[in-house]
């Protein structure tokens, strides 16, 4: 990935794929074959093996939603900014929804987008690391847009259409989203870490509310105090303490 490519505008090169196993896999291959660079966006009308977090299937009806993977140059970023990149990605989805609805959109830690207590979008970031150098990231976005019927197995989903009643052109919307992501990434590149962190926390799902968490075999209630820049959720269960994702499970 060329150093100068960081000045590319995200989505300027926008590739539409009729059908692909997963947009993340496809984007990853393209980068590794030197066929893709920073800012390239891969949009799919159909994913045959779409992935959510760690191979959980991401179910999406044909052409109804945004399934998009974007190549991001991270060479100038320190490895400890990983979660900030994830925050920037989450905020750009918020930006998109906020343009079309006044409904409250929230970020459920660590990286799901919620509306009306239902999941509207998910993010899957894959990073390539050599030694301590962050080579690049593939940010994958699954955003529910026009889908109104979901398989029974889907866990409480919601789409933009279900909120606004409108039908959207998903390709145009994905291109708009790229511009928003571009803006949020500029913040990250410029070192506006605190602004990103504050914005993320301001829109945090259940902030200052009590939720149940599972730590080992113990279930306990705790007040969500925020998320720190390493991505740890800070909980108050008598004392305030940060927890890693994976270390605790949020019981919803």
């Amino acid at each position, binding site marked *: 990935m060329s150093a100068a490519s960081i000045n590319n505008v995200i989505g300027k090169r926008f590739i539409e794929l009729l059908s692909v196993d997963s947009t993340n896999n496809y984007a990853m291959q393209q980068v590794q074959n030197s066929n893709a660079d920073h800012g390239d966006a891969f949009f799919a009308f159909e994913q045959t093996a779409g992935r959510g*977090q*760690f*191979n959980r299937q991401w179910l999406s009806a044909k052409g109804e939603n945004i399934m998009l993977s974007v190549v991001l140059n991270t060479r100038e970023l320190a490895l400890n900014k990983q979660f900030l990149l994830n925050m920037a990605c989450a905020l750009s989805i918020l930006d998109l929804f906020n343009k079309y609805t006044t409904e409250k959109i929230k970020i459920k830690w*660590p*990286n799901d987008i919620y509306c009306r207590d239902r999941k509207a979008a998910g993010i899957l970031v894959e990073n390539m690391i050599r030694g301590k150098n962050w*080579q690049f990231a593939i940010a994958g976005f699954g955003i529910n847009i026009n889908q109104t019927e979901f398989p029974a197995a889907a866990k409480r989903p919601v789409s933009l259409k279900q909120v606004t009643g409108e039908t959207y052109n998903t390709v145009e919307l994905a291109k708009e989203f790229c511009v928003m992501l571009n803006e949020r990434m500029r913040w990250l590149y410029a070192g506006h870490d605190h602004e990103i962190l504050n914005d993320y926390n301001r829109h945090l799902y259940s902030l200052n509310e009590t939720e149940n968490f599972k730590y080992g075999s113990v279930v306990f209630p705790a007040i969500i105090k925020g998320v720190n820049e390493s991505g740890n959720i800070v909980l108050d*269960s*008598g004392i305030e*303490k940060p927890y890693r994702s994976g270390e605790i499970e949020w019981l919803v």
Partner: protein
Amino acid sequence: MDYKQIQELIKLVNKSNIGELSIEEKDFKILIKQKRDKVYQPEIQQFPVQAPLYVQPQAAALPQPVAAATAPAQQTATAPLKTDNLITIKSPMIGTFYKRPGPDKPNFVEVGDEIAPGKVVCIIEAMKLFNEIESEVSGKIAKILVEDASPVEFDQPLFLVEPA
């Protein structure tokens, strides 16, 4: 078994080329292990599985889950390895180590595999972000030091590589 007998046993094991000796009688059990020179162990022991940072203070109501079950397997490694000129691939972050891309997929690398710079050797998952770790070196995988799906600390050794 009394103290003196144990001392004798230790001496015996020391002089021998036995790697470890375990004796069990009724409710008594003893395990004596030989320490080897030039093994990577001390380095590993600096990075306990449970980082102190995340240990729940005792004042809190939460009991601490037992960490013993996830004690690093490498501490009981017995295979004699020429570690003198081996290169260690370390974890660049705190997270969970995965040696394969998915539950139904083959491992990224096996012991004996030739690797080159850019070859993906594992995934470290941290905060639901997936980090594919590429090798910086050329060589042959001599040992995989971490169990699949186990937690790893910053700088914890993951692989030993015989340089090409």
